[in-house]
């Protein structure tokens, strides 16, 4: 469902335009119906990978496809729901208007958008604030509104960038239940996190990215075999990365 082949990306930073390599020849395939956890320390390249998938930035080389369509084709995003890290929305719009926008741009009929909005607003527990301007929302409420927006068109692929950040324990529980529900519906979920426990709880497969290199991809059952825990696996990969070994 998601296919990334040989993606590399460099950024130029500072007044000297120093080159910073963000991704190096990244290859990754995520089949339909899989929940994939993308793990890595801050600045490892998780968000860069996701932004390339969402066509917010362009890769220097390689190709990325979602549902068989190149990510540079806007139609590829018809089947994708995306929640950015720290989402910001229009100050003076309400959650209802935000979802109307999401549904209509995805080609949904107004009546269906209304039904789906009611369902999702209830799901993310924003019933009492759905008519309020989004600028009055807390960080956690914005995250929940963003989640509803990502799911408004019932997408086959859901891409979540650090979805747990900013959520209180109730919000985390709600999101966890939602991930399990999406998995039950056969959706493909790609989510990034640096919280090991989240990856362990929800992923079928996980990838560890460090300094722009995908160092390890395996099923959770393999990663956690022989009584290992994800923290030990992750720390081993970080240490190997520092030493420069594969």
């Amino acid at each position, binding site marked *: 469902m998601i296919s990334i082949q040989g993606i590399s990306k460099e950024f130029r930073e500072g007044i000297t335009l120093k080159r910073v390599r963000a991704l190096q020849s990244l290859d990754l395939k995520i089949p339909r119906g899989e929940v994939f956890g993308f793990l890595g320390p801050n600045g490892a390249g998780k968000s860069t990978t996701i932004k390339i998938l*969402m066509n917010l930035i362009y890769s220097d080389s390689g190709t990325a496809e979602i549902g068989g369509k190149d990510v540079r084709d806007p139609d590829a995003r018809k089947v994708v729901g995306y929640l950015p890290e720290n989402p910001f929305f229009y100050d003076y719009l309400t959650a209802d208007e935000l979802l109307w*926008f999401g549904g209509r741009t995805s080609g949904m009929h107004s009546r269906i958008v209304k039904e789906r909005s009611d369902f999702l607003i209830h799901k993310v527990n924003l019933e009492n604030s759905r008519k309020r301007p989004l600028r009055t929302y807390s960080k956690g409420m914005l995250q929940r509104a963003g989640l509803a927006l990502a799911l408004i068109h019932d997408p086959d692929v859901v891409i979540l960038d650090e979805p747990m950040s900013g959520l209180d324990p109730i919000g985390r529980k709600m999101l966890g239940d939602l991930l399990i529900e999406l998995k039950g519906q056969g959706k493909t979920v790609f989510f990034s996190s640096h919280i090991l426990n989240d990856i362990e709880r929800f992923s079928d497969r996980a990838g560890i990215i460090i300094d722009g290199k995908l160092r390890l991809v395996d099923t959770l059952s393999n990663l956690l075999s022989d009584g290992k825990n994800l923290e030990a696996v992750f720390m081993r990969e970080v240490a190997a990365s520092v030493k420069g070994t594969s």
Partner: protein
Amino acid sequence: MTLWPLALITFKEGIRNKALYGITLIALMLFGATALIATMIPREVGKVSIDMALSTISFTGLLLVFFVGINLMAKDLDKRTIYTVLSRPISRSQYIFGKFLGMALLIIVTMSALSLMAMSAIVLLKATHAEYFGRFSWSLITLAILFNILMLILLSAISFFFASFTTSSFITLVLTIITYIIGQSISSVKALVESSPQEIGITVSPVTLKMVKAAYYLFPNLSLFDIKLQAAHALTVPSSFVMWTIVYGLVYIALAITLAALIFRKKEFP
């Protein structure tokens, strides 16, 4: 289909902006001042009130474009609200077109409301000082307002063009203001340097002449859209001038927005 939802949320975001309340308040105060000042010049009440009412519309329209319009797109880039839009099946070009459509709608609705206020002020003064409204034409006043709206949409299109490659809303604002100033005066400056300024003691070098000519063709001639004087004095405006000015405005808008969309296609949002 994807343009309309984006245009509508852009319009809603703009019309609910608190800065718009401030602009409306300034307009109301200026319309009040129009009534006061016009009556101080008894024989010219008609001309002064029309000129001041139209000038108020122009001024508040500029505030709308500079302080609400530019922010509508700049905030998308600064706060990354653009992710909300580009994560939908919307291309970067469609983003520019949809956003511009919303901005044009905001200008049309806001300026129509302000124009109604201006016309009310004129109606009031005409009722109380009917004898000084001898030469008077509602159609010319309406045309002056329509030209002003077209000029504001053109200026907004130019701000979109600048926003497509600048990295900060402040630079976009400065470039748009500079364009407005040049656009308002370039026609007069060209006429001056092409006439015989040496007769009045001004020497124009060939380089200056070329630069002024280049600026004349590069920058929009915004003074074309200013027919306040003709409206105030109820002078005839040829229909060919009206037609060509509208065509000029629409072609310039289309060019600026198409260029903005082409540049924006390359832009990344890390």
